[in-house]
């Protein structure tokens, strides 16, 4: 089986603190992969390593067979990895629709001169992106608020918007950072179905960080568990659930 994303001994050090220590895992195309662990385990730091926000101190990261450690974030996006953020980072003054269009710009760029002169080409691309954005908004059930200022949305809707925006970049791998945070059980159920649809209908592989155990167990096909920057367990949900190290990490057993 081909590997889409591989972390090989990925490590990052901040001064004296080793935030991520020799973490290894592989994600195959089409997988729904989960990254869990108690607070401060280094999960978002892993995301930041993969997406180029940080450069690994040592170790390697491979995407589609090529090393991407230390590549800048916009190049990573162009290669096909998109993400959402733990603390929502929407373009606040822009509308819902406009947020998603920004994502779409990656695959359909407009030349600066065409834009300044409002040439037909620029108009065409903008219209196409608008339609495409609406389609993505439909997937996350936000098409009815397309013209609303994104800062005015409720928390759950903002999270869904971030997903739509990331999808608009047409990634091969979608990284979701705590997509279910702040959602009620019904919303979580819908999100579960939504993520499945993203994988099934759009062929995107999904790697997600989540705290809600039930959500992760029912959605992910394979899970890696981090604690204090190190990988303590990896495998299908059934194994992880029973793993004593995982239980200890979360419930804090006396050593």
């Amino acid at each position: 089986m081909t590997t889409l994303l591989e972390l090989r001994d990925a490590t990052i050090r901040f001064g004296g603190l080793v935030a991520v220590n020799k973490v290894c895992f592989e994600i195959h195309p089409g997988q729904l992969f989960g990254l869990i662990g108690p607070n401060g385990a280094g999960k978002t730091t892993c995301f930041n390593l993969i997406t180029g926000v940080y450069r690994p101190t040592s170790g390697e990261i491979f995407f589609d067979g090529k090393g991407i450690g230390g590549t800048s974030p916009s190049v990573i996006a162009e290669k096909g990895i998109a993400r959402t953020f733990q603390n929502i980072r929407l373009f606040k003054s822009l509308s819902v629709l406009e947020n998603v269009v920004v994502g779409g710009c990656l695959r359909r760029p407009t030349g600066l001169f065409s834009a300044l002169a409002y040439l037909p080409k620029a108009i065409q691309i903008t219209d196409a992106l608008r339609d495409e954005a609406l389609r993505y908004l439909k997937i996350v059930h936000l098409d009815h608020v397309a013209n609303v200022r994104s800062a005015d949305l409720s928390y759950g809707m903002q999270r869904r918007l971030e997903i739509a925006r990331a999808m608009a970049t047409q990634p091969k791998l979608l990284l979701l950072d705590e997509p279910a945070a702040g959602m009620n059980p019904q919303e979580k159920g819908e999100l579960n179905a939504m993520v499945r649809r993203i994988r099934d209908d759009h062929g995107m592989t999904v790697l997600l960080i989540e705290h809600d155990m039930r959500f992760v167990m029912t959605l992910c096909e394979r899970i890696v568990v981090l604690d204090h920057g190190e990988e303590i367990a990896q495998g299908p949900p059934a194994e992880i659930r029973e793993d004593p190290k995982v239980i200890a990490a979360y419930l804090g057993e006396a050593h």
Partner: protein
Amino acid sequence: MSLAIHRNWTQFAWVRLLSVGGVLLVLSQLDGLLAGQNDFVKRLIILAGLYVVLAVSLNLINGITGQFSMGHAAFYMVGAYTAGYLASTQFTRLNLPLTLWMPLVMVAGAIAAAIAGLIVGLPSLRLRGDYLAIVTLGFGEILRIVANNSTELGKAFGLNVSPNFRSIGLTWGLAILCVACCRNLLKTSRGLQFLAVREDEIASAAMGVPVTRTKVLAFVVGSAFAGAAGAVLAHFEGFVSTAMFSMDVSFILVTMVVLGGTGSITGSVIAAVLLFYIPEAMRELPDTPMARILGAPIAIVALLRREQERFHGPARQKWARNLGIVLGCVVLAIALGAVLANLPGMNTMVQGSKLRMVVFAITLIALMLLRPQGILAHHELSWDWVQRLRGKPAPTHEVSA
């Protein structure tokens, strides 16, 4: 909302061509139509047009792309000096007709300023906010001082520029071109990338927006327009000197952008005209007793402090309230003036000419206290906005799932 779902009518090529044609027609006739006005009025109109170009081009850098550039006068100067230098060395040699010379020299000024913009924009890649502000200011001052000491550029006396060319049509043509370009940009997806960089650089990068290139391009385009304006200025005034491009000019330009509402193109236009015109209109202030001068700031300070309380209420009431406050200020100022007149020494007359900038400064402070987000805030004066004001419900309140 630049990309609202409903389409805009400039989509259609014929609409665009017609409007361009119409504008060109009007512009070409403008000088003839306004020929009867005296020189002072014509001067005001041309300078206002130049300030519009400067404010809108600065808005592209500061308001739309969110970079804090405080040295815009430098690009104006580069364009003006380029035009001046070319005019003093090449014009007589090439002997081109003015209709060919002006566009040529404007392009030259634009290119020179764009190069300066590129140089200034590069540090913006590493610097944030206030640091970038001071660096852009610094570049401007360095350029100014270098020009002041350069013999080829006439040192402190500057250069004489001939031919003298004054055209309202050309100036406002440039202004309209600048506004049109910015508006066009914001109606396309490319413009959204600029806005995204302003909103959140990290998220933009994660979505594949070329953040660095976008920031630099904003500087380049913004400075190019300022440079073209500089070329027009050089030929309008007939000379260029560094005194025309001091830090004060940069500050006034930033003020225009903020006052109009950072990011709002139409706001910048309105603020540019207003802020340019107010000091001009006050050139003829009468001599006023000292008492009245003191009365005004006291009144403003006393009443405007009320703004500290948040006012929750429909927009219409807020406008009425603000109006009431302003009127109250005026009344209180006059009353205070009358009262203070009884104090010794308060009746000494102050020359009107000295009052000009003082009133301007007070107006500025009062405006910022009353409406800190700027006249138009982040809106544009457009049909959409007018429709919304007239009562079509604005979709800006919280929507829950």
